[in-house]
């Protein structure tokens, strides 16, 4: 299935500065797996923040559907 991955903040370096990519991932894969297949292993990124699917924050173990928009944020702070 095809999904769109959007990166925010410091994570854009994993797409060479691009903010989004359409990627092909196996049916039923999780957000975590989709990111890993795109070269983003959140467990190894200290400043990894959270993920959202179609504009809603979810657990990284959330299963994806064809056409989903997966957004990954780096940590932000301030206020």
């Amino acid at each position, binding site marked *: 299935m095809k999904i769109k991955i959007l990166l925010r903040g410091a994570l854009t370096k994993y797409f060479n500065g691009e903010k989004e990519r359409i990627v092909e991932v196996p049916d039923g894969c999780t957000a975590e797996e989709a990111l890993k297949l795109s070269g983003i292993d959140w467990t190894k990124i200290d400043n990894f*923040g*959270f993920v959202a699917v179609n504009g809603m*924050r979810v657990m990284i173990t959330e299963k994806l559907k064809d056409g989903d928009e997966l957004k990954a944020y780096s940590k932000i702070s*301030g206020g």
Partner: protein
Amino acid sequence: MYGYQNKVLRVDLSKKTAAAEPLRMDWAEKYIGSKGLAIKYLYEELKPGIDPLSPENKLILMTGPMTGTTVPCSGKLGVAGKSPATGTICDCSIGGHAALRIKYAGYDAVIIEGALDKPGYLLIEDDKISFEDASELWGKGCHETEAILADKYGHEYSVLTIGPAGENLCGMACITSDYYRQAGRGGMGAVMGSKNLKAVVVKGTGGVKIPNVEEAVKRILEIQNEDVLQEDNTFVFDWGTTAFLEACQDGGILPYKNFSDTTDPNWTEYNGEVFMEKLEGKRGCGSCGLGCGNFLKIGDAICEGPEYETIAAYGPNAGNRDPEAILKANQVADDMGLDTISSGDVLAWAMEMTEKGIHDFGIRFGEMDTYIKYLEMIAKGEGIGKELAMGVKKLAGKYGGKDFAMEVKGLEYPQYEPRGSWGMSLAYAVSDRGACHMRAYAPNEEVFAASIPPYTPEGKGEMVYKLAQHNAVKFCLCICDFWGTISMETMAELMSLVTGKEWTVEEIADVGTRVINIARAFNQREGFTAKDDTAPKRIFKEALKNGPAAGQKIPEEAFEDMKQQYYKVLGWDENGLLPDSLIATL
């Protein structure tokens, strides 16, 4: 100790006298500077129960040992007094260049007492102090006032000024500097207005001594390059706080129509990209390594900002999606010297009151022409603005609508929906100056880092305490909030480099705890207890309808549980009171 000027300028406006006195170094060793040291002075010097708008209140402008050194992001000035909005202690942190100039003039702090008999301003030029007439400035906006004073004195002077909101003793009145930087919350502008003090103008030509200069500056530069200028902080150069809008929307904590819900399906109409396309210029505060300030122009509106808080308050929380209206409202509020958070919440509440038919304030969600007009009327105390200037707590006491009056202790809610970040409801409730997001920024842990589950009371007392302790130290050091990666270790190292005294992480963390305690002790002396650590009924009774936190409301017992956890970790009793043994250590 190095880093300090060892001197306080004490100004008596009633007698028109000013004299330098030694800084209480015994207090500085326990409270460092800015927030902590200013609160200590106020705790010792203010009589309990005074009227915050009387000459008995004091306004303290407090720097810290790093102010004026090469430590990056250390240009914040602490502004503190007893708040007319809440009756609590209140300290704010204002950017710009005023802190550096006070320090270069030779002072760690300026303590302003009494009141002038007619409008005036205080002129500080190193050790030359004078009281100048401000009758021609009175009534003018912050921007015009600052422009007139800049023309008169030149750009080597910093100006701290109030607008009509401060003159009219509005509890939402700011103190403004560098045109668009504010000591925004709790009505410090009204304290200044009550003293007939239109402005403080300051120039300093001295410097600050630190030990082992060559070695210290080299290490500070390394810290700047390795810590400050890393990508987790530099996003504020590219985006300012507009970056938070998308994260708050996706995280389910962006308030909508007076916190009646969260998330807005049309949020992209006013997201960070929309604003940043209109960028005209950039700037930062004195000693800043990040430069978060964005000058934008949309149509006729021009302003430095808007910050996230203002976008959310004047945008979705007001039922508005027009970026130009947000920027225009921001420009008007800044010129009037009005806190955008509190004014936004008051107007959102008035809109809901009108739409629910409880009381007609003549404004409904999305009516931005009226909104902008009302901002000016609030500041000037004109017509319905005089009513709205009372703040949402007093208004709800008069007209009803208490359940959706979004405030704690009379200070209106910042723009983070607590039902999507339960720890934030605790942070707002126990904050020393009423509902404040700067004391403990819970979304960092519960939403943006997702390291702690957001919809549970478990562990929230400890979490909020740790966040508050960290920020208390940061504010004592005058470090900007946007150096988000700074650790206790780095703060201890910087203190050692600047003061020449070795500081351990434990010692510096203890300062943070002590500051939380003395602020609480001040409020306790004013009669505040656990019953004042509240949350609006809305967050207990109404579940969110949309977004990732849909279905969430905070059970009252969970809220009480979080409060008791917090009190316990600080050694307070069940009523939120410090025992005498703890007070004796302050």
